[in-house]
C-alpha cells in the first residue's frame, strides 16, 4: 500500500551533471604584493570583468572579490577544470599579464573547501590581521556588484547570505575582534581600563603626526573632549585644533594644562624629553590625584618614563603599545581556533542544503511528502467509514494514489527536463519552497 519512492528508482533517468562551487584566487600568503597589485580589480574594473565573465557559458554564477590582500573568483560550474581554465585565461587577458606570472600563486578550492574558504574570509579568519573588521564590508560590496550585474543565482545568493551570518556569529561568539591591534585602538583600550568611560575626558595633543592624529580621532569618536592642541608652530596647532574642534594652545603652556587634561598624546620631533618628573611637583595635588595617561608616540621619546612611577600617572611609549598589540594578536589567533569550529559547523549545514538542491532528491522528497499526506488522510477517512467493505477500501486507496500520481506527473517531468539547464537550480529551489521541503528554512534569505 505504501509507495514511498527511493532515489534509486529515479536515478535511471540521466540528469545534467550537478553544479559545483569553485573558488580560485590568491592572497597575501601565496602572492607577494608585486603580483597582487598587478591583478587587483578596482571599482571600475569589477563591473567590466563581471559583464565579460557573465557571457562565458561555462561559468554559471560568479562573484569577484578583490582587496589589497586578495583577488578571488567564486563561481559555480558543471565542469571545474574548464571553468578554472576560463578564469585563468580571462585574468591573463584582462590584466595583460602572462599566466606564468600568477599561476604559481593561485589556490583552488571546490565543494566544501570553497565554502569553508569563503566563510573563513568573511569571518576575517583568513586575514593578514586576524579579526580585522573591514573584510566583511568589502565582501558585502563585492556581493552588491554581483547582484547589480546579475551574476549571482540561487547558490551564491544563499552562500553569501550564509557567509554574512557566519561572520557575525564568529564575531559575537569569539573574542576575535576584542583585542586592539593598532596603536590608536590600543590607546583607547588602555584609556578605558584606566578611566572606565572616555566620555568627557580632556585630551592634550602635543606635536603632530599621522599616528598621533589617528589616536586623537579615535578618542574623539569615543566622546573624549575637550581637545587641546599644542604645536611648536602655533598656526599649525590652530589648523589641527580646527580639525578636532578643539582649542590650540601655546607650546610653552602645556605644563599648565597637565592640571586639567586626562590624556596626553605626545608626538614631537624634540631630541629630548619635553616633560620630566621634576615638572610634575604639585601637579597631582592640583589634579586632586585624578589619573593622567600619557601616550608617547614620539621617537626619541617626549615623556620621561620616570613619570610612570608617580601614583595615578601612566606612561606608555611606542614600544609599550606595540608589545600590547603583539600580545593581542596572539590572543586573537587563539580565538580564531574557536572561530574555525563555528565555520566547520556552518560548512556542514550548507552542504546539506546544497546536496538537497539536486533534482532527484527533490522529486523523491516531494513524492514522499505527498505519500505521507495521502496515508494520513486515508487513515482518517477510513476510520469513519465503518460500513465500507474491504473492496471499497481498496478502491479508495487506488483512487487517492492515482490522484497523487497525476498531480505530480507534470512537475516531475518539468524538473527532469534537460532543456532549461541554466535555471535548473532555481527551479529546484522554488520547488522545494513550494512544497516546504526544508524544515529548517531559516538559513535562507531571511537571516541576512
Amino acid at each position, binding site marked *: 500500500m505504501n509507495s514511498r519512492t527511493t532515489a534509486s528508482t529515479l536515478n535511471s533517468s540521466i540528469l545534467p551533471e550537478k553544479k559545483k562551487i569553485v573558488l580560485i584566487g590568491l592572497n597575501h600568503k601565496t602572492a607577494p604584493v608585486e603580483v597582487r597589485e598587478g591583478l587587483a580589480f578596482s571599482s571600475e574594473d569589477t563591473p567590466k570583468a563581471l559583464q565579460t565573465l557573465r557571457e562565458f557559458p561555462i561559468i554559471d554564477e560568479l562573484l569577484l572579490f578583490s582587496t589589497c590582500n586578495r583577488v578571488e573568483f567564486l563561481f559555480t560550474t558543471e565542469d571545474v577544470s574548464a571553468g578554472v581554465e576560463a578564469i585563468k585565461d580571462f585574468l591573463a587577458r584582462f590584466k595583460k599579464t602572462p599566466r606564468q606570472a600568477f599561476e604559481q600563486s593561485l589556490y583552488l578550492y571546490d565543494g566544501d573547501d570553497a565554502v569553508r574558504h569563503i566563510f573563513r574570509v568573511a569571518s576575517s579568519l583568513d586575514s593578514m590581521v586576524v579579526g580585522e573588521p573591514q573584510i566583511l564590508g568589502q565582501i558585502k560590496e563585492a556581493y552588491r556588484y554581483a547582484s547589480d550585474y546579475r551574476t549571482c543565482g540561487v547558490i551564491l545568493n544563499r552562500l553569501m547570505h550564509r557567509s554574512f551570518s557566519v561572520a557575525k556569529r564568529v564575531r559575537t561568539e569569539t573574542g576575535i575582534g576584542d583585542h586592539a591591534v593598532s596603536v590608536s585602538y590600543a590607546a583607547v583600550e588602555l584609556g578605558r581600563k584606566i*578611566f572606565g*568611560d572616555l566620555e568627557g575626558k580632556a585630551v592634550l595633543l602635543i606635536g603632530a603626526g599621522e599616528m598621533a592624529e589617528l589616536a586623537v580621532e579615535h578618542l574623539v569618536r569615543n566622546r573624549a573632549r575637550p581637545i587641546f592642541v599644542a604645536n611648536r608652530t602655533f598656526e599649525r596647532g590652530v589648523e589641527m585644533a580646527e580639525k578636532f574642534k578643539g582649542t590650540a594652545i601655546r607650546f610653552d603652556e602645556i605644563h599648565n594644562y597637565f592640571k586639567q587634561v586626562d590624556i596626553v598624546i605626545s608626538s614631537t620631533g624634540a631630541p629630548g624629553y619635553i616633560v620630566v618628573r621634576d615638572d610634575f611637583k604639585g601637579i597631582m*595635588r592640583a589634579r586632586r590625584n*585624578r589619573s593622567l595617561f600619557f601616550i608617547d608616540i614620539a621617537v626619541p621619546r617626549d615623556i620621561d618614563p620616570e613619570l610612570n612611577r608617580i601614583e*595615578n600617572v601612566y606612561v*606608555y611609549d611606542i614600544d609599550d603599545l606595540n608589545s600590547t598589540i603583539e*600580545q593581542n594578536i596572539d590572543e586573537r589567533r587563539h580565538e580564531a581556533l574557536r572561530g574555525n569550529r563555528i565555520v566547520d559547523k556552518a560548512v556542514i549545514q550548507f552542504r546539506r542544503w546544497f546536496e538537497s538542491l539536486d533534482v532527484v532528491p527533490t522529486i523523491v522528497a516531494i513524492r514522499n511528502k505527498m505519500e505521507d499526506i495521502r496515508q494520513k488522510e486515508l487513515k482518517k477517512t477510513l476510520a469513519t467509514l465503518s460500513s465500507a467493505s474491504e473492496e471499497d477500501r481498496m478502491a479508495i486507496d487506488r483512487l487517492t494514489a492515482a490522484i497523487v500520481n497525476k498531480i505530480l506527473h507534470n512537475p516531475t517531468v518539468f524538473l527532469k527536463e534537460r532543456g532549461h539547464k541554466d535555471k535548473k537550480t532555481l527551479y529546484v529551489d522554488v520547488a522545494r519552497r513550494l512544497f516546504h521541503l526544508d524544515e529548517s528554512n531559516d538559513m535562507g534569505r531571511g537571516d541576512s
Partner: protein
Amino acid sequence: MNIFFALTIACYIASSLGYQAYVVFQKRVIYRIAMIGLWTGFVCHTIVIAMNYVEAGYVPVQNIHETFSAFAWAVAGVFLALQIRFNLMVLGALVAPVAALCTVIASILSKPQIQMTPLFENLWRTSHIGAIILGNAAFAIAFLVSILYLIQERAIKSKKRGFFFRRLPSLKLLDSMGYSCLIVGFPVLTFGVIAGAVYSQMVRGRVWSWDPRVIFGVIAWLVYAVLLHERLAVGWQGRRAAIMTMAGFAVLLFTFFLRFLG
C-alpha cells in the same frame, strides 16, 4: 544542622565555583548560574537567621557561630546590593568563597547555649554587634575590591597584561566601588562604636575601657576616618587608598579575633 543552613552552604559553594569558572571561561551563562546560586543562598540564609530569631527570641549575633554566620550573610547581602549598581561580575569570585568559608566555619563551631540574661536582650549590645558585623561586611568587600584594584593597577603600570587585564574592569570603577563601600561602611561602623560605648556605660558604668579590642576597634575606625577625610579633602584615590583600605580591614580582622580569642 538545619536543612536551610545546609542548603545555604551548598549554594554558596556552588556559587563560588560558578564565579571562578566565569572568571576563567568568561561565559555569561555561568555567571548567571553563579549569581542565581548566590541569591538562593542568601535567601535561605535569611530564612535561617529569621528562624533563629523566632526560636531564640534574640538577634542571633551573640556567640561565635552566630557571628560567623551573620558576617557571611552580611557580606553576601552587601555584595548583592552593590551588584545592582556596579555590576562588577568578577568580584563574586572573591566574595562568594568568603561567604562559603564563613558559613562552613560557623557550621563547624559549636553553638554554646546562651545564658539568657536581661543583658543579652539589651538593644544596645545587639545594635553594637549588628552594626559592627554589617560595617565589617562592607569593609571586607572594600578589601576584596582593593585587591582587584592593585592587581589591575600592577598590570597597567608594569605594561604586562596577564590573565586579569581583560577580565578586570577599569581602575575607575574599582576605585569608586571601594569608595562606595567606605561611604556605606563608615557610618555603620561609627554607629557600632557609639552603641558599644553606650552599652559599656550602661553595663560597666563607663564609656571607655582599656580593653585591647576596644583600642583596636577605635584604631580601625581612625584609619577609615583618615581615609575618608583624605578622599574627600584632597581627592585621594588609587593605589594608596586601596592599600589603606586593606590596612584598615586588617586591623578590623584583628579586633574581631581578639573578641573570641582574647
